């Protein structure tokens, strides 16, 4: 079976490092990664604790398909109580770090307590050591990775670390691995920073830590599933060519591209920051922003963007460290740093994206928070004196400057680092924070796509696009086309998507495969990998179990059904233009039905019967 069946437990307060057997009963109930690590977290922490206190735990988790040949089998997750939301945080990343952790023989690493001084964790197969990181504190992710590889004379080492944002406990700090892959959302990097843990470096050469129960069956299933991805238009053509940025013009045309802090729903500058634009030659130096696409471990889609800036652009003119290739903008980042602020300078967005990777920040929350600050400024609530600079909506210079200040933890950047909910509350306009449960929306407007509105409102980690992805049926027609304007049928479809997403995230593969793969494709790989009986029905029930487990954690943490809502702007201010003109998010029509199909009470609490049915 493809669990290593081993957990590494590290107490940063005492320095004690222990090996534990994986709880296999839980593994059969929750599979791995997101589900299984959530189970461990729920059992081990008080849900009401302060996320940045030493009592919080940080769980680094792989799934049973992580580190296998399954296409996209490189995913890993960070599970903790999130500082941005106070809700359960599960942040998912690709790259090569997760697979390497598995090669070293570990399903999970549980980090507890707080180190007295900055440390990093070195894992070389079965041996784990805590080492002094004083010399790394204050360094960027890029410098940290290079320094560690050099120091340990191991270029094949994989590193996940935090930058200055995580050290400064920016509430949307990310943990970045392989230079530009991130566990980006919900502020998991701030929790790592609060523990004085700078980095985790891992190298795995163990050859018999895990094997598929049925190697031949697994190889066949993997080959078949790879063929399905290659033959599909989205995973075989669209994503490799344009990355997720393939969506910018599509969503704008649909009339669901939130713009200027959701004041508008279409962006006149969308084309200039789109995937197509990344391929075009710049007038300044005749080169394209995009150099090539790149894959995460085992991924046959390769949606990753590798970009190179115009070295003459004002953002990087005298900064040669940004003149090489690095991770370029994906759709959500391009939207948040661009459309959400009214900015359409692709080079500036790419630079700030580099900065987010280098210093470990979530570009979605960063961009959305700057968008909110700009609206406060436009309204005269936030003054130039307080912010230290002029920040009208659409100002490229202000967007860049605020991002730099936030990463450095200086000036008004400290306030930006708290996220939009705290920013807007501070200036007496909480309604201007475009967030749910304190986490900012990604790049789809809930007035244009009703299913997405319901998905945002009910997501366990705050507003989120990867906890169901209703864009698939509502825009792309996957698995079938649903009218984005109607509320009918959205609740049951969303439940299915949410449960399937939980399975995908728990298995160790990437959500993007679901553009092409259905449940049976995924089941066909899990079955030979693990052996035993893994029917699709069982997996879908497992997904539902994970969802309800997360929900129960949130309820225990003090969130209620009242938090399943949207900002008044989406509920009351009709879209001003485009195909969705006049529409609002009709959450009230969908939420009661959603609670019902979930088997929850009218207050959004799982009923005793549901809890019992799922064996929670």
């Amino acid at each position, binding site marked *: 079976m493809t669990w290593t069946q081993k957990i590494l437990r590290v107490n940063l307060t005492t320095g004690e490092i222990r090996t534990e057997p994986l709880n296999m009963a839980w593994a059969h109930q929750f599979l791995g990664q997101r589900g299984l690590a959530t189970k461990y977290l729920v059992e081990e922490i008080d849900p009401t604790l302060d996320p940045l206190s030493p009592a919080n735990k940080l769980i680094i988790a792989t799934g049973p398909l992580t*580190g296998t040949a399954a296409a996209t089998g490189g995913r890993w997750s960070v599970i903790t109580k999130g500082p941005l939301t106070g809700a359960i945080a599960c942040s998912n990343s690709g790259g*090569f770090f997760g697979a390497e952790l598995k090669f070293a023989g570990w399903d999970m690493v549980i980090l507890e307590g707080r180190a007295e001084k900055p440390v990093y964790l070195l894992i070389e197969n079965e041996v784990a050591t805590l080492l002094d990181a004083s010399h790394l504190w204050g360094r960027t992710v890029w410098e940290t990775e290079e320094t560690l590889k050099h120091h340990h004379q191991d270029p094949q080492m994989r590193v996940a670390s935090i930058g200055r944002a995580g050290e400064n406990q920016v509430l949307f700090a990310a943990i970045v691995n392989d*230079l530009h892959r991130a566990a980006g959302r919900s502020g998991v990097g701030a929790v790592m920073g609060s523990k004085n843990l700078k980095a985790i470096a891992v190298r*795995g050469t*163990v050859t018999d830590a895990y094997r598929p129960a049925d*190697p031949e069956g697994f190889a066949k299933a993997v080959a078949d599933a790879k063929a399905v991805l290659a033959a599909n238009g989205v995973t075989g053509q669209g994503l490799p060519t344009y990355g997720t940025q393939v969506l910018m013009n599509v969503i704008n045309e649909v009339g669901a591209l939130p713009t200027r802090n959701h004041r508008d729903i279409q962006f006149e500058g969308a084309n200039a920051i789109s995937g197509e634009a990344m391929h075009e030659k710049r007038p300044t130096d005749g080169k394209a922003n995009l150099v090539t696409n*790149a894959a995460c471990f*085992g991924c*046959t889609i390769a949606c990753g963007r590798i970009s190179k800036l115009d070295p003459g652009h004002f953002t990087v003119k005298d900064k040669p460290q940004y003149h*090489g290739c690095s991770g370029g903008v994906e759709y959500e980042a391009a939207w948040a740093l661009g459309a959400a602020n009214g900015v359409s300078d692709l080079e500036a967005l790419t630079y700030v994206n580099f900065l987010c990777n280098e210093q470990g920040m979530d570009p979605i929350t960063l961009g959305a928070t700057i968008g909110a600050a700009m609206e406060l400024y436009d309204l005269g609530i936030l003054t130039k004196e307080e912010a230290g600079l002029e920040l009208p909506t659409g100002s490229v210079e202000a967007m860049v400057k605020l991002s730099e200040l936030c990463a450095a933890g200086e000036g008004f950047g400290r306030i930006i680092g708290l996220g939009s909910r705290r920013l807007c509350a501070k200036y007496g306009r909480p309604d201007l924070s475009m967030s749910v449960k304190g986490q900012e929306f990604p790049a789809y407007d809930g007035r244009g796509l009703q299913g997405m509105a319901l998905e945002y409102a009910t997501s366990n980690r705050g507003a989120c696009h990867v906890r169901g992805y209703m864009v698939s049926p509502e825009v792309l027609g996957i698995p079938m086309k649903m009218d984005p304007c109607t509320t009918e049928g959205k609740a049951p479809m969303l439940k299915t998507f949410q449960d399937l997403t939980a399975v995908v995230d728990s298995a160790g593969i990437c959500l993007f495969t679901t553009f092409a793969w259905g449940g049976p494709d995924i089941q066909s790989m899990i079955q030979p990998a693990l052996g035993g009986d893994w029917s699709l029905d069982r997996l879908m029930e497992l997904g539902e179990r994970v969802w309800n487990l997360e929900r129960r954690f949130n309820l225990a943490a003090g969130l209620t059904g009242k938090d399943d809502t949207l900002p008044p702007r989406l509920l009351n201010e009709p879209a001003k233009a485009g195909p969705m003109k006049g529409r609002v998010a009709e959450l009230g029509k969908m939420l009661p039905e959603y609670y019902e199909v979930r088997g929850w009470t009218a207050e959004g609490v799982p009923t005793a019967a549901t809890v019992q049915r799922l064996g929670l």
Partner: protein
Amino acid sequence: MQKSLKIDPNKCTGCLQCEMACATKHHGTFTISRSRIKVFSFEAEGRKVPYTCTQCDEAWCLHACPVEAIRKDARTGAKYVKDDLCVGCKVCTIACPFGTVNYVAATGKVQKCDLCGGDQPACAQACPTGAITYVDADWTGLDRMRQWAGKTDTNPAAV
């Protein structure tokens, strides 16, 4: 017919499916540290380059081996390691100018690409982008020749 692995770095996305296929074929594991093909990532240039043994005809490794543990498969042209003879002296790793013969601490022997015995090599089979293909050894440059031939203007008068 002898065949060769042909590598086109421009098509490589760095997914490491080739490394996993190699490790699985020879060791029954996904652990890529055991792979005989290695993808190098040059981050600042945005390049990924798969690299493995070129199967030199007058192979340095083969000539350097003091116990004749490296042999030539007459059918496939592959130079392969006879594990029962290898004493782990590592002279071949010094002799190879390309670094594609490697010592394996766990076994105390060296390992190198053996073209999977001449069948369709696992790395080429696993590659999703066609960056690694297995082609007629006499015509490893055929694609590139065809590409340049296509650029030849044979009818300048028509322009």
